[in-house]
C-alpha cells in the first residue's frame, strides 16, 4: 500500500512539429487507500499521467513518490504497480483459474499457494463458479472481473485501471461500478481509475482529478466539482445533460445586481456571496452557468424565475428533458416524466439563486 505523490510532474514528447507538452506541472497527492479518478476528454494528458505512474513512460520533469520514495528511476516491476486494461487481454487457451494464477506462476509461487490465492480473489470478485471455464464462454462483465482479478492477485502497492468499463453495456456498467467500489472498500488499496466518462468517475472515486489541455483543472470530491466547479470547463464536463451556459451582461437596477442575456428576456439573479464577488470584480460581462436539474417547472420556494417556450420535450422514462428556446438561445431542464409541458407551451422556469454559477468571461474561472 502506498500514498502516491505527483510533484510538478511534466511530460514532453518530442515530435516532428516540435515538442508536445502532454502533462504540465501536475500536482496530485493520492492518499493511501484512496480511490481517485483521473477524468478528462481524449488528449487531455490523463493517459500519459497514468503511464508515468505505472512506469511505462519516462518523466520529463518533476518527481513521483510512492510514500516518501521517489520512483522515477524504477521499473513497473520494482514499483509494484498493477494495471487492468480497457481490453481484457485474457489468454484464450487458459481456463479462468489459470488466467488468474498466471502472474503468480510467473513469479514461481508454488501450486498450493497459487490455488489458495486464486480462490481468494475469485471469491472477492464473485467468479468462483466459473473458474473452470475458458474466457470465450464468459460475458463481457465476467471477463472484466477476471481481468481485474489477474491484476489484484499480485497484491500490488498501487492499482491502476485504464478505461476498464468502456466496453460494458449501460445496465451492466452501473452494477460493475458498485461492484468495483465494494472491492475497493474490502481491499483498502490505493486505486487510480482513468476514464473519460464523468458518470463513472463520480460513481467510483473518493476524489476526482479533472484534466484538460495537459493541466489539472480541479481535484476534489463530487460535491466540490458539482457545486463549486473551478472553471467553465469543469462545469461543462461534469454532469449530464450538460450545464447550460449564457453570455450575460451584468446590470444593476436599484442596487440589485442581475445577469441579463442580451437579445432575450432571460435574466438571472445569484446568491448574495456571488453578487458581492461580482461587485468586487467589476466588469460588464460574465458567463452564467446553471445545471438542467436545477431548473424547475414546478412551484418552488424562494426562487427566481424566467419565462421560456418549450422547444422539445424528451421523455426518458425516469425523467424528461425539456429544451427551451428564447429568441435563439436554448437551454435544457430536467423535469418529472409526467411534466405538463407540451412543445410550444410557454412556462415559468424556476431556479434557486444559489444554483446560479457565474464565470469570468475572459478567464472562465468561477467568480466566487
Amino acid at each position, binding site marked *: 500500500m502506498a500514498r502516491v505523490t505527483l510533484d510538478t510532474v511534466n511530460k514532453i514528447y518530442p515530435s516532428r512539429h516540435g515538442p508536445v507538452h502532454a502533462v504540465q506541472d501536475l500536482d496530485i497527492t493520492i492518499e493511501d487507500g484512496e480511490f481517485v479518478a483521473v477524468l478528462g476528454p481524449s488528449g487531455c494528458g490523463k493517459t500519459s499521467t497514468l503511464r508515468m505512474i505505472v512506469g511505462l513512460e519516462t518523466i520529463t520533469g518533476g518527481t513521483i513518490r510512492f510514500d516518501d520514495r521517489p520512483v522515477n528511476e524504477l521499473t513497473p516491476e520494482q514499483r509494484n504497480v498493477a494495471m487492468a486494461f480497457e481490453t481484457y487481454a485474457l489468454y484464450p487457451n487458459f481456463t479462468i483459474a489459470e488466467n488468474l494464477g498466471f502472474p503468480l506462476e510467473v513469479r514461481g509461487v508454488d501450486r498450493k499457494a497459487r490455488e489458495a490465492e486464486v480462490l481468494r480473489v475469485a471469491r472477492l470478485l464473485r467468479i468462483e463458479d466459473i473458474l473452470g471455464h475458458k474466457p470465450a464462454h464468459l460475458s463481457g462483465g465476467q471477463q472484466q472481473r477476471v481481468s481485474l482479478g489477474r491484476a489484484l492477485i499480485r497484491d500490488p502497492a498501487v492499482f491502476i485501471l485504464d478505461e476498464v468499463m468502456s466496453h460494458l453495456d*449501460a*445496465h451492466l456498467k452501473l452494477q460493475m461500478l458498485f461492484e468495483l467500489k465494494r472491492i475497493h472498500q474490502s481491499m483498502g488499496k490505493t486505486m487510480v481509475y482513468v476514464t473519460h466518462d464523468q458518470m463513472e468517475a463520480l*460513481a467510483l472515486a473518493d476524489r476526482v482529478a479533472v484534466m484538460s489541455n495537459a493541466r489539472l483543472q480541479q481535484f476534489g470530491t463530487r460535491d466540490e466539482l458539482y457545486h463549486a466547479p473551478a472553471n467553465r470547463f469543469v462545469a461543462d464536463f461534469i454532469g*449530464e445533460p*450538460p450545464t447550460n451556459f449564457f453570455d450575460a451582461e451584468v446590470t444593476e437596477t436599484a442596487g440589485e445586481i442581475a445577469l441579463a442575456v442580451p437579445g432575450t428576456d432571460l435574466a438571472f439573479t445569484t446568491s448574495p456571496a456571488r453578487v458581492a464577488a461580482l461587485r468586487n470584480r467589476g466588469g460588464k460581462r460574465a458567463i452564467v452557468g446553471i445545471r438542467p436539474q436545477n431548473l424547475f417547472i414546478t412551484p418552488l420556494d424562494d426562487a427566481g424565475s424566467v419565462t421560456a417556450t418549450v422547444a*422539445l420535450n*424528451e*421523455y426518458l*422514462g*425516469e425523467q424528461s428533458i425539456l429544451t427551451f428556446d428564447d429568441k435563439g438561445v436554448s437551454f435544457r431542464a430536467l423535469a418529472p416524466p409526467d411534466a405538463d409541458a407540451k412543445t410550444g407551451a410557454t412556462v415559468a422556469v424556476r431556479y434557486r439563486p444559489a444554483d446560479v454559477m457565474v464565470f469570468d468571461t475572459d478567464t472562465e474561472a468561477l467568480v466566487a
Partner: protein
Amino acid sequence: MARLELQEICKGFDEPVLDRLSLTVEEGEFFVVVGPSGIGKTTLLRCVAGLEVLDAGRVLIGGTDVTRIPPYRRRVAMTFESYALYPHLTVFENIASPLRARKADRAALERRVGEVARLLRIDQLLDRKPHEISGGQKQRTALGRTLVAEPDIFLLDEPISHLDAKIRHELRRQFHTLEELRRVATIYVTHDYAEALSLGDRIGIMGRGGLEQVGTAREVFQRPTSLFVARHMGQPSINELACELAAEGDAVRAVAGGGSVAFAVAPAHRAALNGGTGRLTVGIRPQHIAVLPEGAAADGRQIVEARVEIFEALGATGVLIAETGGVSLTALTSPDARFEPGQPIRLGLATDSFLYFGADGGRNLHG
C-alpha cells in the same frame, strides 16, 4: 417516399439472429430499435439495406418487393457505426458521393451539398479530409451523405453513441427537428434506452431472434411485456425480486440471504396474479422507491424499514442501495441527499407501479 414492410424475415450466421421478424414502419415514422450489443440490431439494418441476403422472408419498400434488389438500386440510405467515410475524399466529396453516383449535374450537386452542409453546420469543413475532423463532425458528414440522397428509407446505426455527452444532446435535438429525416420511414438503432425513448415515435426492443415488444416510449417503459424489456429500460436497472405469491393473493414474499420481506400487491393487480403459479418475479423501478423523512405520511405507499448499504451521488441523480430483510433494493434519490452505510431509513414503495413477471419466460402477468 414510402413505407417499409418486413415480412417474416429470417437471417442467421452460425445460429439464427433474426427469426421470422415482421415489422412495418410507416412513411414519416421514426422507429427506434434498442437492445443489448451483439443481439442483431445491425444485421436487421443490413437486411433492409440489402447488404445481407435473407434466408427467408420479404422486404417491401412502398409496396414493392425489393428482396432480390441489390442495395444500390433500393433507394435506402444508411449510416454506419464506424461512420464509413471515404478516407481519401474530402468532406465535400463524401457528402456529394450519392449525387455523383447518379451523375447529377455540377450546379445542382454543389447547391445541394451546400444546403445539407449548412443544415448540419459543417459548411466550414468541406475541404477537410475525414482524419482531420472530430468524431461529431464525422458523424455529421456521414449523416450529410445520407441526407443528400433523399432516399425512401433512412437507416441509422448507433449514430451518436460514441460521442461526448454535449454533442450527443445536440445531435439528438437535431434528429428531432430534421424535416428530411422526419418525413420518411426511418429505423434508428441504439443500445441506449434513453436515446430510444427520446427519439422513437415507436420503439422496438430487440431480444434473441426478434423484437420482444413494439410500442411508444411510455408503453415500453411503463408496461413492458417481459422482464427482458423491463431490464433494458432504465438506469439504474429495475429491481428484480424472485418472490412467492401468498395464498390470499394480496402480498408476495421475497426470500434472500437468510431473510425475507413481504410486498403488498396493489388491489388493481390482484386479479391478474391469481391465475399465476406461486412463484413470480416482482419488478420495482428505482424511481418508485422513495426515501421518506421521519414522520412522513405513507400516502398510499408501503413503508419498509431498511438499512443503507451504498449511496452514490452521480450527476443529476443519486443511487441508493438499501437492504431490508436480506433483500437489496436500489432506489433513485436526489444527488444532494446524504446517507451513511448502516444508517436506518424508511422506504416508501409505490406498490401500484410494481410489475409482475411470470417465473418461466418472464412475461408480464398483467400487461
